[in-house]
């Protein structure tokens, strides 16, 4: 299976993105919670990109969902031309420190890393690619 979608760098399109991911994966006999987690992981990466790109950008975020047997690969391509995010150097913020700072953000990537088996960020043809991977185990939908 290989499906793709592209959206503008605009948070108003996140609901369309979530519907796309849900429709792509809902036939895989996953539980509602697992399906929601996968939708959430894609939403979080794309939200993060949208937050850091000027609203006037005409670039688009490309999302491709690839299923190879039981391995789910989701590639999110950031075409904005920004420098590569250093995933290896990323340290998830401590919840208590976030609370004390009264900041509203900072939890998204922590969620993504908790949900997915593997998260890589690399450069390809001048774009930054986020590759999320998860081995899927069929579950009875609850």
């Amino acid at each position, binding site marked *: 299976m290989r499906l793709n979608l592209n959206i503008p760098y605009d*948070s108003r399109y996140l609901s369309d993105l979530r519907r796309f991911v849900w429709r792509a994966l809902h036939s895989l006999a996953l539980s*509602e*919670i697992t399906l929601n987690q996968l939708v959430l992981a894609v*939403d979080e990466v794309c939200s993060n990109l949208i937050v850091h790109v000027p609203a006037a950008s005409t670039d688009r975020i490309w999302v491709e969902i690839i299923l190879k047997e039981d391995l789910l690969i989701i590639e999110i391509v950031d075409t904005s031309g920004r420098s590569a995010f250093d995933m290896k150097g990323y340290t998830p913020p401590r*919840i208590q420190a976030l609370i004390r700072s009264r*900041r509203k*953000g900072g939890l998204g990537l922590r*969620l993504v890393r*908790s949900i997915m088996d593997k998260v890589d960020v690399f450069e390809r043809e001048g774009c930054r690619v986020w590759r999320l991977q998860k081995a899927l185990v069929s579950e009875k939908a*609850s």
Partner: protein
Amino acid sequence: MEVSVTKEGDIWVLCPKGELDAASSILFDEAIEKAKAQGAQKILIDFEELNYISSAGLGVILSHLDEFEEKHIKLAICSMKPKVANVFEILGVDRLLNIYGNRNEANTYLNEA
């Protein structure tokens, strides 16, 4: 997403409906700010009609906790769908909040002396 804000006795009840994401979290934050501005000392967030939450929604709640503690504002959350509750559990945020299965249980906590 819509957020209704009502007052039941001395409890401010916030009911977000739909999907709480990066786009709609501003509305949710405004609802909490509205309750705070009116001098709320007890806030109940009822998630019964919430179908989805991202880190942006969680972030809004967490960003107010320090002030709630400082001002002795009691916060309760109730009626989360399992897939919504799971997002709190992934991050361990559920252990930091007063979360109840239904509104009656949440009201009991909020009305404790």
